[in-house]
């Protein structure tokens, strides 16, 4: 049998390794499930609404109640002014229209006070408040159509709903972007029958100009409520994979006018942010505690044979010291890779199964590299300690001390260097700086890059990808090479 295979088998197929790997996988699944349970409570509210209000022979309100996929849901809609019910209707398709006899000046007054549209569906309750402040209502011409305000539901959690620009001014159009659907509400001039909608993505901080790259939105469904061309339409759009701004351009052919509205766009919907955040959480227990298993593995594979004299018997075989050392180091490395891989896949698949959202491939890669680097860094350090300290009790004692320093006291050191616990940015900066000098630092950096990708943390200047790679590799390579050089010439008795 190839001794390397035997060494690997004795390392990976060890009861302690398999047992604790199983324990950590179960614990990781538990952590993900716990996050899922917490998120699930929040995502039960799936009723969303987009609505518009204008005055035309009384007060008109149209709206659309929809679920997280942008599909209409049935329910009851009520309009409250100052808390008093002034109109209600029910809908089967999600679209609704209400009309009640308020003229322009009355509407203006009520808008100042606040008009609220409330929808109740089997999925939950949602309300859209219309409230105009700092606006010269009185200046609005008492014409047939002197004011129109559109608004979307803003109570959607864990859901990809993007607000069109609303601010404090009345607006004629708004949109929600949901699961590849652009739900577009337009309250324009009657007579603009065949308006066109274009959309585009931009990484500009604020979009006042339509992005160069624009796509014509394909209309899926239009429901006319208002004038001839007005109402709510659903367009198919292609979701972008990158963060930035989503911009919609409305083109009115008759008046040759265009209107642009945009909203900040995140490639990940909020639900996904929470889901992806649970990926690093799911592996954290393994990454923190599995180095202890490797402390034991190094004890068993290197320290104990050295201390007991068993290494001598092995060395009397036709093998060089280099080969013994490298064989055992490779066996440990393969164990680290395999354990990390199994854990990463288990947690990733658990997330996919529970949420129905698969973590991106690069997240798998980051998590896998992070925990493998973390375990390998400690493994390499332990190996060096086992070679330097032939006495097994000395090895165990010092390894435990180093483990505690790097896993527990490293954070305290960052606090001390930052002059206390109030300068959060300095603490964060120093924590990442110190991670370069921690064998388990790669995990911290992989978490950082995942959280950056989902927009959960801001860019931190001291985190440099080249330094991250170099420091992680150095933690693996340098101790193992020093250990090898020392092992070549050491006296085994």
């Amino acid at each position: 049998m190839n001794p390397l295979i035997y060494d690997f088998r004795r390392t990976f197929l060890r009861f302690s390794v398999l047992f604790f790997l199983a324990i950590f996988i179960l614990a990781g699944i538990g952590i993900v499930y716990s996050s899922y349970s917490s998120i699930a409570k929040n995502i039960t509210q799936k009723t969303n609404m987009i609505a518009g209000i204008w005055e035309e022979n009384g007060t008109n309100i149209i709206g659309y109640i929809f679920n997280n996929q942008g599909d209409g849901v049935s329910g009851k809609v009520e309009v409250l002014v100052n808390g008093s019910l002034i109109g209600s209707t029910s809908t089967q398709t999600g679209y609704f229209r209400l009309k009640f006899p308020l003229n322009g000046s009355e509407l203006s007054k009520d808008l100042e006070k606040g008009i609220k549209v409330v929808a109740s569906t089997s999925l939950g309750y949602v309300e859209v408040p219309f409230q105009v402040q700092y606006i010269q209502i009185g200046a609005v011409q008492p014409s047939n159509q002197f004011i129109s305000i559109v608004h979307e539901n803003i109570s959607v959690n864990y859901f990809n709903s993007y607000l069109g620009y609303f601010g404090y001014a009345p607006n004629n159009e708004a949109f929600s972007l949901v699961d590849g659907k652009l739900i577009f509400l337009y309250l324009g001039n009657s007579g603009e029958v065949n308006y066109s909608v274009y959309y585009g993505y931009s990484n500009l901080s604020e979009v006042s100009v339509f992005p160069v790259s624009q796509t014509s939105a394909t209309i899926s469904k239009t429901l006319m409520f208002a004038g001839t061309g007005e109402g709510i339409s659903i367009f198919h759009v292609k979701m972008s994979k990158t963060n930035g701004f989503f911009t919609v351009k409305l083109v009115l052919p008759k008046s040759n006018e265009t209107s642009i509205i945009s909203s900040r766009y995140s490639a990940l919907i909020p639900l996904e942010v929470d889901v992806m955040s649970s990926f690093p959480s799911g592996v954290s227990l393994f990454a923190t505690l599995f180095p202890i298993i490797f402390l034991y593995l190094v004890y068993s594979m290197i320290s104990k044979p050295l201390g007991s004299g068993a290494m001598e018997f092995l060395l009397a075989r036709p093998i060089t010291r280099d080969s013994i050392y490298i064989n055992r180091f490779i066996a440990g490395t393969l164990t680290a890779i395999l354990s990390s891989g199994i854990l990463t896949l288990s947690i990733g698949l658990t997330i996919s199964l529970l949420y129905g959202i698969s973590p991106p491939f690069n997240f798998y890669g980051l998590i896998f590299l992070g925990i493998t680097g973390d375990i390998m860094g400690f493994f390499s350090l332990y190996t060096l300690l086992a070679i330097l300290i032939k006495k097994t009790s000395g090895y165990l004692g010092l390894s435990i001390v180093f483990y505690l320093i790097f896993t527990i006291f490293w954070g305290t050191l960052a606090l001390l260097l930052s002059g206390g616990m109030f300068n959060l940015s300095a603490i964060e900066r120093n924590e990442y700086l110190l991670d370069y000098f921690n064998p388990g630092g790669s995990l911290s950096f992989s978490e950082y890059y995942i959280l950056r990708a989902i927009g959960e943390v801001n860019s931190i200047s001291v985190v440099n990808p080249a330094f991250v790679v170099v420091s992680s590799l150095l933690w693996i390579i340098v101790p193992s090479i020093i250990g090898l050089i020392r092992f070549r010439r050491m006296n085994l008795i």
Partner: protein
Amino acid sequence: MIVIENVTKHFGDFIAVNDVSFTVNNGEIVGFVGLNGAGKTTTIRMIAGVLIQDNGRIKVDDHDTISEKKEVSKNLGWVPELPIFEQDAKAWDYFVYLAGFYGISSNDAKRMARQLFDELGLAGFEKRKLATYSQGMKKRFSLAVSLISNPGNFIFDEVFNGLDPQGIQFFRDLASKFRNEGKAILLSSHILSELESIADKIVFIHKGRIIKQMSMDEVRRYVSPSLKIKVDRVSVELIDYLSKYGKVREEGGYIIIDNFNGNTADVSKEISALNLNLYEMSVSSSSLEEVFFKVIGDQK
């Protein structure tokens, strides 16, 4: 053949082995004799390639133990005084693992293990962990592993230590067998009587230095024999009479003639001529142990 040339080994300031040179020829059993801490085991470990000398050179079948370590290990079997294995390993698995270092496939190694475990009395214990093996079983397992490559050279380090008479006989017969097969055997033991009966040459090591190398004939000649006789009546006349054969002394009812330089037939005749009854007469050579202490004494 094992050739040790001017080998020195320090542990810090302590010189464990100092300029040691000797040779173990093929078809020869060399007894390696010294007090505890004399440097025997350190020398043996360096021959086995598990310890690296500071100076000097060791060759096994013309292969250098440092630069040609793999070849040396293939050509050398080593049964340590206290074989230590990785304790959690099972004998069978560990044998197959170690056979892998000799380039032997798993199937061949299993076949070989079955045969060697049978021959060496380990059959039935293959699946047990090595930690549960007795000292004798561990030595037999070491031997089994050493036999994987059928090497031409063997080192038995205090191999008789801790063994029952049957075990001692087993290894003594084995050493003789290997010698007859033309192998070079280095046998260290503090049970010097065991060496006397099988060694061809004795290498004495003391405080890290080789103080003497002698063939067994030289050992036997090194200290003259004693004649021990018992008669019915010891007289001054008899003692005076026997003085011409050596240094006569009386001890426990026996007359002992140290450095005996006559022959027993003459002594027998002369006792009869004195009208004395001879009850017992024996010639005793000096034991290796006595030789050893004499050699050490000569060094002082």
